[in-house]
């Protein structure tokens, strides 16, 4: 269970998150929608432990643990996974090496042995098949020269491999064509179960057509201005953000 209360965060003394309240129970899928610059990625980064952001007020707990006391890698070991809006390139490091290192870091934390190279390959190939990725991905440098869509697919591959309990997906749908979107969404749906929490950050309703959220939140200027069920996304698609933003100024 993720519980965020009155979370406020700033970067370089500029306030970006201005009091976020959000809780996600195991098994739930929540969507956060909002215009560009509203603070969606900031929220994702703050949850994941990026140090450039200062938390000025509020709390965030996952599984009863105060996240602000943990470093980014410790949060990852707790089961938090962020699929990045802009995954970075790491020249010279093969994707295979990264995937294996990440999995072994997790295993080490769990007190397990490093995975055997052959076992690893068979597991990763099985996941890649689900995402329609061919073997060449493994031997390319991490995200180097990947198209936007390839990068997103690679993020989901890591998600499938690491099997986190809290998945934060930051605009995973952007940069994907319609076929790729369907494949990636199917991959994410496979991860849905009664224990796992998923937070989908998106701009558009189209991802939500594939992955039906339990709750939709609308974020504007660092605050959640509206909440509802899936129909909120449909309404948003039809009317745009404007009515919600006005509602905020009105009340």
């Amino acid at each position, binding site marked *: 269970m993720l519980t965020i209360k009155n979370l406020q965060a700033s970067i370089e003394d500029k306030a970006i998150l201005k009091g976020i309240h959000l809780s996600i129970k195991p098994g739930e899928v929540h969507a956060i929608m909002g215009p560009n610059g509203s603070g969606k990625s900031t929220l994702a980064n703050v949850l*994941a432990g990026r140090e450039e952001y200062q938390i000025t007020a509020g709390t965030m707990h996952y599984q009863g643990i105060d996240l602000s006391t943990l470093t*980014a890698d410790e949060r*990852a070991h707790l089961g938090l996974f*962020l699929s990045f809006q802009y995954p*970075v390139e*790491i020249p010279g490091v093969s994707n295979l090496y*990264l995937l294996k*290192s990440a999995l072994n*870091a997790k295993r080490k934390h769990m007190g397990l042995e490093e995975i055997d190279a052959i076992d690893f390959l068979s597991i990763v190939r099985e996941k890649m098949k689900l995402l329609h990725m061919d073997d060449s991905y493994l031997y390319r440098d991490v995200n180097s020269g990947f198209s936007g869509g390839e990068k997103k697919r690679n993020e989901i591959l890591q998600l499938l491999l690491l099997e986190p309990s809290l998945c934060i997906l930051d605009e995973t749908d952007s940069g994907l064509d319609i076929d790729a979107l369907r494949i990636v969404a199917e991959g994410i749906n496979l991860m849905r179960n009664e224990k796992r929490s998923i937070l989908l950050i998106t701009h558009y309703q189209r991802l939500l057509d594939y992955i039906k959220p339990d709750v939709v939140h609308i974020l504007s200027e660092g605050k959640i201005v509206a909440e509802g069920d899936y129909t909120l996304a449909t309404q948003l698609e039809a009317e745009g953000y404007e009515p919600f933003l006005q509602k905020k100024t009105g009340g």
Partner: protein
Amino acid sequence: MTKPNETLENLLQQDYEHGFITDIESDTLPPGLNADTVRAISAKKNEPEFMLAWRLKAYEYWRHLTEPHWAHLKYGPIDYQAISYYSAPKVTEGPKDLSEVDPKLIETYNKLGIPLKEQEWLAGVAVDAVFDSISVATTFKDKLNEMGIIFCSFSDAVQNHPDLIQQYLGSVVPHTDNFFASLNAAVFSDGSFVYIPPGVRCPMELSTYFRINARSTGQFERTLIIADEGAYVSYLEGCTAPQRDENQLHAAVVELIALDKAQIKYSTVQNWYPGDENGVGGIYNFVTKRGECRGHHSKISWTQVETGSAITWKYPSVILKGDYSVGEFYSVALTNHHQQADTGTKMIHIGQHTKSTVIAKGISAGFAQNTYRGLIKVLAHADGAHNYTRCDSLLMGTHCGAHTFPHIESKNSRARIEHEASTSKISEDQLFYLAQRGIDTENAVSMIVNGFCKEVMKTLPMEFAVEARKLLGLSLEGSIG
């Protein structure tokens, strides 16, 4: 020809005359350097006359030189009269077992995964206690002997193959080459010798590691490697574990000679003690390494991974004399804390259609300074010469520095010379990305740095590469975050 014994006697006389008394029976010469010291070294090693003559020529030349200070390095003056230039290999010095060794050193060995026996050897535990594995080295030697390969200490080669020594010694790095090379020629104590006969491909990586007395070769080492026509050899120098040494100054010389169609691959992983965080107590490493592609279609490749030394001054070079010969230089130089490295290469294109490739990766952290200095020289007759150079620098933090000084001298207007350079920083984005995947900072830095060096690392022989990867990570521990 003077017999060694006569030389000894002469020497004793002279010593007396000059009021300088050398105790010939003692294991160590008193500090100081003059012609008598040189004679004493040669005599103690029972060398033939030509060796003594050569050493003396070198000493005479060195005497009139002044130490070079053009490299981008800063260090206090070295008192050459305060050094003892000969010390017989001692078997019993050093700790009795690992419990007497600095625990920090042991910790590093364990992180590198070095087996216990090798740890003892590296830490200087008495040799005879460690080397019950001599049989391994012997089997190895028998196999090489069968193929006509000579691989022995320099001293042994002087005794057993004087003709080869006389023919090739100083033919690539003459005794007049530079301050440190002249000093080495005058006083070098020992080193390695390799000769691969025509058409023979050496079946294993040759490593000083297998030469059991390698540890005592001291601060002035000399290596000579000859690959005869069509021969091939891969040679490994150094090792990844940190080596401590009482001698602060190291001035080694390495000469490589490749005849027609021969290939020499020389890999170094150097990890001398770099001094503590404040730069105290580290080793000064002034090395002259040069290879000559003497024959047509010959090839010499240098690969080096440098993480050690307080001060490194090193330019492995290739003289491309034979037509269609190829020179390569792949280098990773990592400096942390207060280390200073001034490294690079020289590629001298003399023959036609000669080709050289230079890939230099510099990594600086802490307060370190890392300099690449390269010279690509193309002589007038070197038609079809081609060089490609790339220098990449990676900076960690804001107090360190990276400098590149690429020099090009071309007398042939048709030569193709390409140069690329880049400087980058380890980005917060990369570190955060890896942290988010559960990888801690130290492993993340190691991963990024190894990625940065990949092109060089992949030229290392397999076993060496695995250790070198770990080493890069270890050398950077604590440099971020």
